């Protein structure tokens, strides 16, 4: 089978090492003999629903975020249709913000999003920069744990409820309705005070976590991949076992007790 990834605005929204998530997904699929086809969507490209098994959208500079926001509007319907049909998505920082309704700068200037996430973001004076650790919500944590091949773990029932990464943003994202990914035990997350990070809608996720996110969070990587396969085949899937010792050592090394 060939997994179809749609990578939104790779040349404009690729400032923070987020391309590493694509590399991670590609390799983890390759190691399981799953082919991956990556379609790049750049300004003025067309995007039709039904051709994507996984969306990816990274972070970038303010000027480029505004630039792609306008082009993104034409894809609103396609992306919305796909997300409603359960297509998984990973959107990070600026990409996450644009999946919401809008980004309002400190001067009141409005950058339109596509509103597939019921969130909006406001520019602030708070610089939320640093290592971030998230405890996933129990429901999500359970789904991720169950989708992950237990043979990959160093010991049975090893804790896999955490996510580790690095955040760098001053935008504060307000959740209007829906669920977050989890609460922060280190760092800020969506805003300066709530202690909540990220957003989830069906199989689509938004987060402020760079790192890149997926390499040190192999359980989340496999969760997204399995959801992508499930979307294509219609069947839940358990990915074959893989040696994730290094991934978990790296993950553990970032955990603050």
């Amino acid at each position: 089978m060939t997994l179809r990834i749609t990578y939104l605005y790779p040349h404009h929204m690729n400032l923070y090492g987020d391309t590493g998530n694509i590399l991670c997904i590609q390799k983890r699929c390759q190691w399981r003999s799953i082919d991956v086809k990556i379609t790049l969507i750049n300004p003025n490209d067309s995007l039709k629903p039904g051709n994507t098994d996984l969306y990816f959208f990274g972070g970038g500079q303010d000027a480029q975020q505004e630039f792609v926001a306008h082009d993104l509007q034409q894809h609103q319907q396609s992306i919305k249709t796909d997300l409603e049909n359960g297509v998984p998505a990973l959107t990070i920082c600026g990409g996450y913000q644009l999946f919401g309704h809008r980004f309002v700068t400190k001067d009141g200037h409005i950058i339109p999003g596509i509103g597939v996430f019921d969130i909006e973001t406001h520019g602030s004076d708070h610089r939320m920069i640093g290592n971030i650790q998230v405890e996933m919500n129990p429901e999500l944590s359970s789904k991720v744990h169950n989708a992950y091949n237990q043979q990959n773990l160093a010991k049975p029932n090893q804790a896999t409820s955490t996510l580790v990464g690095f955040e760098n943003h001053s935008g504060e994202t307000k959740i209007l309705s829906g669920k977050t990914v989890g609460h922060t035990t280190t760092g800020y997350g969506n805003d300066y005070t709530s202690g909540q990070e990220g957003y989830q809608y069906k199989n689509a996720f938004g987060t402020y976590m760079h790192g890149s996110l997926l390499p040190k969070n192999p359980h989340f990587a496999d969760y997204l991949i399995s959801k992508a396969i499930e979307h294509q085949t219609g069947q839940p899937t358990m990915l074959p076992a893989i040696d994730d010792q290094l991934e978990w050592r790296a993950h553990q090394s970032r955990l603050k007790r």
Partner: protein
Amino acid sequence: MTFTTSLTIAFSKIIQQIVRTLGSGGGSALPGLVAQKLHPNILTDLRKSITGEIVCISGTNGKTSTANHVATTLRQSGKQILHNKNGSNLERGIISAFISQANWRGAIPPIQTAIFECDEAALTTIVPKLQPTLLILTNLFRDQLDRYGEIETTRNRWESILANVSSPLKLIYNASDPQLHALATKLTNSQISVEPLMLTNLHPSPEHHTELNPLTNIHCPRCNTILTFTDEIIIGQGTYACHNCKFSNKNLNATLLPSITYKAINNMLAKATLQSLGIDPLQTEIPTEVFGRGELLQVGQQQWNIVLIKNPNGAYQAIKESLLHTQDAVIFALNDNYADGTDVSWIWDIPLEELLPHDIPYYTTGTRKLDISLRLKYFNLPTDEIDSWDQLQNTAHHNLIIFATYTALLDLQQWLAKKGYKQAYWK
């Protein structure tokens, strides 16, 4: 100089001597910081010690090499200069350089020429106080986003300080870099004379890169359309045009690069600087003994090649050029201390797929060795982790290359000094 300045300098000089005697570093930052705290605008006064040109060299990569080349050539030609040789390039580093020249009464003798390497963010406070006569900009790439913020933020800040320059300044800049060309072509301050340095290959070659390479497909700084490069000298730089708004450097007179390396580019910038200072640069060789920039050292029976890496563009170029030579083993030393940048996400933006051979062993070390091991794993390269430099000596390899971030490099230099393989870098 005012009495306050002399007193502050005298006091800071004592601090500098204490630091050096304790052996805890070269006294190239702390004394300056102390002076700065006591007398925040001290640099405005200190600049009066310079009788001739004040040169500032800044940019993401290449500052130290370019500044070193200029300073060494000037010294060889008999000029008396002041130079922040050890790369301490914040305002405190520049002040510390002045302190080094002071006597115990805090007086600084007149100095002919000053060559200062300046940190890209610190340039915004340094330029108004130091009032350089010559400013060299090497390039502007993404680097330490946790510290510096976005590239365009830095560029905007530079535009702003240059708009406010009130004494004659010559700007020499690398026009192969779209960000710098966008900055330079927007300047209207009549105090500034602009000299673009435009570099090309002998045979124009638009290099081809892997599809997901995040360092190519560069957007136009004016309108965000992806630029078309007809010639790439190093990744992210060359001859380009925007088919949408016509922003381009094609019309500039170009200088041919003798080799496509970042050192050759730094060399050209250094030569242009020297020419502006009235020195006809006969030397085309880059002086050796540059702190951590491709230093080759004999370590016991082994030869260690030591290369500083800081950001994806610089790392890509450094790795590409270094692996042209035969290496028996490659070591990556990745730290995440403040000076290295605390966010190591950038390692995922180095397009290693285009560079690293699969037939040699890889080692990793540093506070974030697991991250770099993971990065290499995702390129199908297994790694061995090491905890100390001693372990490298116990291997059978003859030629080792070490790519290290800044504080890992300092750590390595201290180890080398302790073992007697190299003088302490501040001596």
